């Protein structure tokens, strides 16, 4: 019985680790491939965050299955990352925008409602 | 692995020294930071790598990593931090006061 459970848990570990790592790698590739800082933010905040959560869950399960350790701090770490990632992304996005980075566009026409509204305000 | 780490630490020293030989304060200070990283890595390496568990005693574990280099590095990290912080503020003040961050222009003459 316990062996089966352990086996299943191990499978879980492997699955979590692999998917997690896959997402992390994808995020990095995204950061390389995407054309501007905003699109890169998409990649890094989302894929990397999830990936890391996957790896951590894998580690959590592993430590529980192999050593019977329930590591609260790991869970805390996951939650923390999940909660903070979008905030970080928002902050970087805002910083990028206010430091004048224009969003990339496929046809050269920038669609930027924010910049437009700022320009309007200035005119007023 | 020790050899690779020695090489890495050597690379840190190389890049650190190269930066140290530049003119701009920022580069120079970055150089010192790299050198201290290199030094710490050397200490760690000299204590042999991966020879056991982290040096936190647990029942049933016989082999531990050498704790002494770790203690020494810890002391050194804190000290380097203090020095680097001071150096940073000093560099900032010096470049503000002298109007340049180019050390080559901060040679001075003997009677000032």
């Amino acid at each position: 019985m316990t062996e089966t459970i352990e086996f299943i848990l191990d499978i879980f570990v492997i699955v979590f680790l692999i998917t997690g790592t896959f997402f992390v790698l994808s995020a990095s590739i995204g950061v390389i491939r995407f054309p501007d800082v905003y699109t890169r933010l998409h990649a890094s905040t989302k894929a990397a965050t999830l990936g890391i959560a996957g790896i951590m869950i894998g580690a959590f399960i592993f430590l529980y299955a192999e050593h019977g350790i329930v590591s609260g701090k790991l869970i805390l770490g996951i939650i923390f990352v999940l909660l903070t990632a979008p905030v970080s992304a928002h902050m970087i996005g805002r910083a990028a925008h206010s430091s004048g980075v224009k969003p990339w566009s496929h046809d050269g026409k920038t669609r930027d409602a924010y910049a437009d509204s700022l320009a309007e305000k200035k005119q007023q | 692995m020790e050899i690779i780490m020695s090489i890495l630490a050597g690379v840190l020293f190389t890049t650190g020294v190269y930066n140290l030989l530049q003119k701009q304060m920022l580069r120079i200070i970055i150089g010192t930071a790299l050198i201290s990283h290199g030094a710490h890595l050397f200490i760690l390496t000299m204590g042999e790598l991966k020879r056991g568990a982290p040096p936190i005693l647990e029942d049933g574990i016989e082999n531990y990593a050498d704790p002494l280099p770790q203690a020494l590095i810890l002391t050194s990290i804190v000290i380097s931090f203090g020095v680097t912080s001071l150096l940073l503020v000093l560099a900032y003040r010096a470049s503000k006061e002298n109007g340049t961050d180019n050390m080559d222009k901060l040679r001075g003459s003997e009677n000032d």
Partner: protein
Amino acid sequence: MISNLAVLPIVIPLIAGVLAALFHKKLKVVRIYSQVLTLINTAVVTYILFYVHQNGSVVLESGDWMAPFGIVLVADMLSVALVLTTNIVAIACVFYAPKSLDEKQEEFYFYTFYFLLITGVSGAFITGDLFNLFVFFEVLLMASYGLIVLGGGKVQLRESIKYVLINLFSSMLFVTTIAFLYSVVGTVNMAQIAERVGEVEQTGILTTIAIMLFFVFGTKAALFPLYYWLPRPYIAPNPVISALFGALLTKVGVYSLIRVFSLIFVHERDVTHEFFVWIAALTLIFGAIGALSTNNIKLVVAYNIIPAVGFMLLGIGVYNSTGFTGAIYYLINDMIIKAALFLLVGAIAYLAGTSDLRKMRGLIHHYPLLGWLFFISAFVLAGIPPFSGFIGKLILLQGAMEANHIVVAIIGLASSLLILLSVIRIFIRGFWGEKDESIIPDKKAARGFALPVAFLLFFSVLLGVGAEWFYPSIEGIGEYLMNPQNYIESVLKE
């Protein structure tokens, strides 16, 4: 526990420094407090010196961790004698400080930095642990950084950066070298390192490490070709700070060289010590040339640090008990006279309104006392009898000649002449000559400056004229250094 004596010279200034930070704004209090505590500390150290002289080295195993596992503090004659000299210099400086510093500088923790500098220096002298030596180096360096940037204007800030950078580099080289040494001998306790190095007769890698350590300490000690950083940063701050630097900082480097190359790395002397002798010769030459190169009186004194260090290194390099005795005698003498000279040129520059020799003349008409103090200092510096410089030089040269290093000894003599020329110029061009009527003499300030200097010169004369009271003990240290087994046994107690 009598062995706790060893920690007092470190702890007293440490506590004093911390407390001084607490009421740093109350200048009147903090001045007297600092002066009193310096005197108390000196008294304690004097007692320790007598105790050690009577009963032998005091070894403190901190936290009761037996050597070599814990950090040991070793108060032997060498370290305590140097700590005492440090405190004598400190007395002069702490009484000079209120007259020389402006109140802003005093308020901004001068006295704290000052005490911690003493802490660091004393700690470096006393510790028996190589890594702990690094830590104390950092304490004294950090305190010196604090002092050098104190109230920094353009020049000071500029020179401080260079000073910090070079020292930072050499510190990092130091820790790395300690790591290498640890890898080979598996310990950082100096006595045990010495024992272990002796057991394997200093294999090649150990000699290489020894040379690296030499460069670490040599940079701090300002030896050829490592001294470039020293002169200008040393004259940038207030004279009292220059005096503390000139008297103490490089000397810690010299002390470390003496310790390490008498205790630990003594088995490949054909490589190491022979090398030192020639480095010493070059240091003597280039230092003296440097001192002659400038008309800035502060810079002249700063450059004069270098040949003095060359003399001491010569004493280490010849590796005989006479050489060590001379090096130590000279070291003690030099700590005192360098402090006196820095304080003096500081006072002169302050009173003359310039440190450019070409712009001063006839000062002796206004400030005769300072003039004569300077005159005497010049001869102490050049090693003219009967002052302390002479005794040190005599023993050193004897040591060098005993070791058949005649050429280097003669270089030493030649550099003495250049040294004399470099400082007597200041007397001739600055003090002699027609009275400069444009100067409105500040007699009171001059007296205030002169007293601490006279205090130091008193010791210099005492060490010369009263050499008989000191020499046998210092000779004892020289012999003690030639037998490292004594140190090892007193620490490891086998």
